[in-house]
């Protein structure tokens, strides 16, 4: 087995559900989308891909991320079926 084949055997396709809010929702044009990704993938890596696709102005350091309804660390590795919400700076109150 070549190196390339071994690499393919180790990666696994997962599907995550992405939720956007406020300006991110406006820029993405949708409030959610699902995406096939290759594991291992962290939340910050997923955001970088989506930022490039949608042209989000915020860097990850400006946002919070929530996974499955709870605040999470950006370095968290995503699992199949996760719901990942990107949260721009809050303006309630």
């Amino acid at each position, binding site marked *: 087995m070549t190196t390339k084949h071994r690499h393919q055997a180790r990666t696994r396709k997962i599907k995550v559900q992405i*939720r956007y*809010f*406020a*300006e991110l929702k*406006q820029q993405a044009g949708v409030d959610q989308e699902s995406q096939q990704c290759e594991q291992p993938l962290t939340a910050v890596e997923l955001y970088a891909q989506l930022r490039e696709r949608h042209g989000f102005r*915020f860097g990850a350091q*400006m946002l*919070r991320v*929530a996974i499955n*309804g*709870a*605040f999470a660390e950006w370095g968290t590795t995503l699992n199949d079926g996760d719901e990942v*919400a990107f*949260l*721009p*700076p*809050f*303006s*309630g*109150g």
Partner: protein
Amino acid sequence: MFALSYEAIDANKWVAKLGPGLDSGALVCFEGRVRNHHQGKAVRSLDYEAHEALALDEGERIVKEAQQRFPVQAACVHRLGSLELGEVAVWVGVAGSHRDEAFSACRWIIDEIKARVPIWKREYYEQGEAVWQHP
């Protein structure tokens, strides 16, 4: 006690829910209201949206933390949806034995709500555009 509401906030109803007892010598309420201006622009109306599940959890954590930090009972409700000028966007009520802790807890809660709860405001201006606020 923390809630999100798509209906107008009835402050009297929330005071009743908070239920200040006969040991409460102080009741402090804060109302955040929709203002007709922002950074020199005339504001016509607002929308609020939230990550609702997370906002409910975080709001509840804040109220509980306040009740641990200060000897008070507290409640907070935040509006979602479309709001007109002058409407109450957020209500905080705090009951305590004395005014010092009630004022302090009320101020602490509204500051934490603004900083920690995933709620967003979109302002509609008289000139026609609408802008999500991300301070």
